[in-house]
């Protein structure tokens, strides 16, 4: 049984840097936002340490997000086929594959996930900087109450969007579609997996 390489070593490193930093940011962010979850900061060395690390891990997150954007933006361009896929998303979710147009390397859902995460990530970074350094940075600021409150709202709204999407992403990437996690761990998928989830991509690979 032949195996196909789906993600390169570099792609996998970038993905997991992004993923793990996202998880850290989400956990500590929820701790800062919800008093009943404040105990999570203990896992990060206490409240003050968590507050110190959160923005720096945010920098790591931003750099990985930027790298991911340049690696994948080309593959993530939406095509006419994607429109039909999105129309059939209900059939896709309920496993009635007959009505779903075959996907290429990425299906329309994955593409939209990528673009949504990129936009949310940029807004998240931009709104996070005034919260990180309210006294100002690089000649911008200081940031006063009204600005900071708006940034808190934006920072939380993007968390809400990103956190919701992350749940679906992790679910589909692990237990829902066996074999998918392996693609991001060791980089390879089976022929059958490729045929089932990304038939057009599988055909392209077969042609090589």
């Amino acid at each position, binding site marked *: 049984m032949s195996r196909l390489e789906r993600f390169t070593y570099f792609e996998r490193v970038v993905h997991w840097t992004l993923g793990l930093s996202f998880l850290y940011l989400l956990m500590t962010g929820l701790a800062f936002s919800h008093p009943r979850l404040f105990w999570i900061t203990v896992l990060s060395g206490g409240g*003050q340490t968590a507050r110190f690390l959160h923005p720096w891990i945010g920098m790591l997150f931003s750099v990985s997000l930027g790298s991911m954007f340049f690696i994948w933006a080309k593959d993530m361009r939406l095509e006419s086929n994607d429109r039909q896929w999105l129309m059939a998303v209900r059939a896709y979710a309920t496993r009635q594959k007959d009505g779903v147009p075959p996907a290429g390397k990425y299906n329309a859902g994955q593409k939209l996930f990528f673009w949504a995460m990129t936009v949310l990530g940029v807004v998240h970074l931009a709104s996070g900087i005034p919260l990180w350094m309210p006294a100002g940075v690089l000649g911008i600021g200081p940031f006063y109450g009204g600005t900071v409150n*708006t940034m808190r*709202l934006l920072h*939380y709204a993007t968390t809400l969007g990103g956190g919701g999407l992350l749940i679906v992403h992790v679910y589909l990437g692990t237990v829902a579609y066996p074999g998918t996690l392996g693609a991001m761990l060791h980089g390879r998928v089976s022929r059958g997996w490729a045929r089932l989830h990304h038939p057009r991509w599988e055909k392209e690979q077969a042609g090589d």
Partner: protein
Amino acid sequence: MPQLPGSSLAVKRISASPDPAPSIRTAGPEFAKLIDISRCIGCKGCEVACKEWNELKVEPTRNFGSFQSHQDLSADTWLLMRFTEIEVDGDLQWLIKKDACMHCEEPGCLYACPAPGAIVQYENGIVDFNPDKCIGCQLCISGCPFDVPRFSAETHKVYKCNMCVDRVEVGLEPACVKTCPTNAITWGTKDDMVALAEQKVDRLKDRGFEHATLYDPSGVGGTHMMYVVPHGDRLVDYDLPEDPTAAPGALAALAGLKQLGMGVMGLGLLGTALHYLKYGPEVADEEASDPASPEPGSGPDAENT
């Protein structure tokens, strides 16, 4: 001054606490500090008393062309007499502000704080920072409508006037009140201080300060440090905000968004779990290529046409 009752440190509000305040004591009197700016002679004895009682580091300063001792509040300077020179009706006027925590009834700092217990408000009206619980996020600074709390780059925590809570607790007045040689600063229950302020305002009006007023802004529920302001029409020149608030709108929006966020993420977890229980894993069939699903083969062709 008359003997004051001791003031228990019964807690009224705690930052970032979802639970009700722990106090079951019946509310004692609220205290307030009243600054009569018209009686201030600018001696800055209060600044010294503040440093001395609170054992705060002395910060070297220099003459920068003002009667003021330092340019700004800091983590080590919790009280600063600000002197502003302006012209009113052709006369030089020296506007003085005793810049320190106002101890708001609706404390914007406390509402903005994400660290449980880092900011507390006692029944007596004092808003106190607990550096032990402070995580150094500085959101209290943004939450304060008077720009009072200051971040220490040394300890990465935020500090401000605590109204000498350790004196008030045992029936003493704050250090600045005790030291003031002209009684420009008085201390007592909030009701007494408001009554006294009204007398002072009336006297100032008799003396020709027709805009004299009591500064006890209602946007923050009133404050426990109040001013008698001779030029009540020049609040901005005193550096006193006209209508300070604890930004209730923004905080309510944030609280609503947080509820929504937890709801969405909770439903997301529930939804994926239920989806898995209904549909299970979608396992790829490695053996059959053609008979199982003819679509993958015909799909691309159909699309190209």
